[in-house]
């Protein structure tokens, strides 16, 4: 196991930022942490990266207590890019490179990989926010780490930059690296991650493989000759856990253990003629919104 946390909790005054969070991230998986603002994503990553001390619980990296030596094997980006504003990009990366004890010739490689090589001698405070974000990614890639921990890696990037960063992360994943990524861009997590966990008010309310999370709540689109009657019937049946009237059709999420045929059977028994019945694969965004509602 690359990362394991058990019951980690953190309070800031009366605010519970992390509430008994368990995480298990295996080798070469990509794990997305989803949650609305203030749900505890950054606090959770701060705890696993040893900058926030948990009130309770423990963290293990590579099966051991966290230590500077384990953090050197991890490339991290936490919240916003944090660099010395008055230093050049190369100098800033030199500081990180010396901490990680990597060959300083790596600096040019990671700057090239993130498209910043021509700005190598520029001061950090002259960069655009997108470039700063890319520099943070360059710092994370120094030393070719086994694991990348990325907190909102697409922050401040334009659409082209987002696509570039996504491709960079996918490329790293394909190289066999483990990726742990917090994001509120659900599409990002869906495209990059194999596993995800959803945080709400500091609690992990759902977690698992992304494909499982998506499978859990497919949306059924139903059209009928008498849509309002059908809505009443379906609501009363207990077959669904969520129903929405959208124009002239219903969007329903089936209760656990139910399938589409039970809706068809119910309509037939109640004498309602269906004009449409199809399954729309739910997006992670719909799952997310449903869960954090």
């Amino acid at each position, binding site marked *: 196991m690359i990362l394991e946390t058990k019951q980690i909790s953190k309070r800031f005054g009366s605010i519970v930022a992390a509430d008994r969070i368990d995480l298990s991230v295996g080798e070469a998986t990509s794990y997305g942490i989803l949650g609305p603002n203030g749900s505890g994503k950054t606090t959770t990553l701060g705890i696993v990266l040893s900058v926030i001390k948990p009130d309770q619980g423990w963290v293990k990296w590579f099966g051991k207590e966290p230590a500077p030596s384990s953090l050197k094997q991890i490339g991290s980006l936490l919240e916003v890019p*944090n660099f010395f504003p008055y230093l050049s990009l190369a100098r800033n990366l030199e500081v990180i490179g010396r901490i990680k004890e990597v060959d300083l010739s790596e600096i040019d490689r990671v700057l090239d990989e993130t498209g910043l090589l021509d700005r190598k001698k520029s001061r950090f405070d002259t960069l655009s926010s997108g470039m700063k974000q890319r520099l943070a990614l360059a710092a994370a890639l120094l030393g070719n780490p086994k694991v990348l921990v990325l907190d909102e890696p697409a922050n401040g990037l334009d659409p082209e930059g987002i696509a570039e960063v996504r491709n960079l992360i996918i490329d790293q994943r394909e190289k066999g690296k483990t990726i742990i990524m917090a994001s509120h861009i659900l599409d990002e997590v869906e495209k990059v991650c194999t596993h995800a966990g959803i945080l709400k008010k500091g609690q992990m309310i759902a977690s698992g493989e992304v494909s499982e999370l998506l499978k859990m709540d497919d949306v059924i689109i139903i059209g009928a000759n008498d849509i309002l009657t059908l809505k009443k019937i379906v609501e009363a049946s207990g077959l669904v856990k969520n129903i929405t009237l959208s124009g002239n059709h219903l969007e329903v999420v089936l209760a656990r253990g139910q399938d589409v045929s039970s809706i068809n059977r119910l309509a037939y028994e109640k004498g309602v003629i269906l004009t449409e019945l199809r399954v729309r694969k739910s997006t992670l965004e719909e799952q997310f919104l449903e869960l954090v509602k």
Partner: protein
Amino acid sequence: MKRLLRIEWAKISSYNLFRVILILNTTLFLLVLFVFSRIDISIPGFSWRNIYRFPGIWSSFAWVASWFNVLLAILVMVVTGNEFASKTFRHQVISGMSRNEWLAGKGILITGIALFAVVLVIVAALIYGFIFTNDLTLPVFFENTGILIVYSLQAIGYMILALLFIVVLRSNALSIILYLLYFIFIEPVIRVMCPPEVRIWFPVKIISHLTPVPEFFQLASQSENINPDTLTFEGIGLMARQLPQSTNLIMAVAYIILFGFLTWLVVQKRDL
């Protein structure tokens, strides 16, 4: 150690404000020495120039240098405060630097600045000393050079207290203001309210007394008819009672260790 030195150097070598404060410290120190060297008060039995001669030059120059220790303390607060303001301390920790290593880096920085300050005193003393001293012998040259070590301890004391202020407050402006207030106002007021036997034990009193005001009358006196022991500031009632220098030195070291320990404690305990 070498790695930490390189990391600290990478952080400060291109930092303009760091250079500006060091240059300001050097310029002010040399300016004061130059201005005083132009004064030539010479009355029978007394010569002002004696404070520019070996061996008294070591203590008089260390004392002048000590006026600017606050600048060195501000330098430490600015450099360290930047790491909190731009959250680079946090970035260094998540990159694999332990909090102890970070603190050791600050120790190296403080030692380096203190070394710079001492070298400045030595260079200035050598230049002025050779210009103004006649009949120089090796024993006279080396007499009283121990004050250089004491001065470096004093500079470290000022800077380590500054480090404590900045790691607790994490704000450059607030730390600098409170640090200056503590030196100029808070501790002196508290001292005044305490009985005389207590007030000599306060940290600023102890640390600033490491390089006491040179006994100018003793240094300047050329008369053989005057007993030098009667020419101390304390002896002629111009200065309040002080701790003996050896006790003062032990107490200063104890305060430096205490401030260092408190800084370590804060750095270990707090979230970044």
